[in-house]
């Protein structure tokens, strides 16, 4: 399926714009992960408490350390998706439309949205509840924004599979002169 020359250049320009936005998102997500610096200092405080032989007094630091580790989980997952998006935009910006790499990137983007949202709704609040001493399963927090992200992520995974099929069809078409 050949694209018109004008559509090609519009698509490429859009891809380059989105790549710039993706870089911005990566920087912001990375800054959010600077919380990990706080996690490292918590780790040191915890080690000091343990080495002083007073493990019980280190309990608040342990709790804070574990909470921080869990809270960054969705950010880490989204970071992977945005990185895949940036690479896909870069390839499209260079004119590569139908390719296995782009269909894999699309699937990666969808997966990261889906799993990041599920982590934010289910894993993070439930594990935080357990860290705070709650023994039940009542920590799950269903939020509509996260639910929408999960559904859209699933949709993007399917679109990635459709792109893989389109790539196969394009490849077949290229063999007809």
């Amino acid at each position: 399926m050949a694209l018109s020359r004008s559509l090609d250049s519009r698509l490429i320009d859009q891809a380059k714009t989105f790549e710039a936005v993706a870089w911005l998102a990566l920087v912001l997500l990375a800054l959010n992960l600077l919380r990990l610096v706080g996690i490292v200092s918590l780790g040191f405080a915890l080690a000091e408490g343990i080495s002083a032989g007073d493990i019980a007094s280190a309990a608040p630091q342990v709790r804070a350390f574990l909470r921080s580790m869990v809270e960054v989980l969705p950010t880490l997952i989204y970071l992977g998706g945005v990185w895949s998006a940036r690479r896909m935009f870069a390839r499209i910006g260079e004119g590569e439309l139908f390719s296995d790499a782009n269909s894999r990137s699309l699937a990666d983007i969808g997966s990261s949205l889906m799993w990041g949202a599920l982590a934010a709704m289910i894993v993070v609040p439930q594990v935080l509840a357990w860290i705070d001493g709650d023994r039940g399963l009542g920590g799950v927090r269903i939020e509509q924004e996260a639910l929408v992200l999960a559904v859209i992520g699933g949709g993007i995974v399917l679109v990635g599979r459709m792109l893989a099929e389109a790539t196969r069809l394009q490849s077949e078409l290229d063999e007809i002169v």
Partner: protein
Amino acid sequence: MPVIVTLDIMLARRKMKARDLAQRIGLSETQLSLLRTGKVRGVRFETLAKLCAVLECTPGELLDYSYDAGDLTGESPDEA
């Protein structure tokens, strides 16, 4: 048995170079080479018409075929 492309015979008859033919019909030399060796999945009618117009021939002079029952079942000569 697949359809055989006899384009080389017509090129020789018309004393034309493949490079010149490719340029006149708007194909790359690579694409024309693949067509000449039969390594393409198909040919568009548009391309066939251009070939016939430039080489002053009919499609039957560019393509040849011998009956093979395997073509009806989709079997390749290696599978039959």
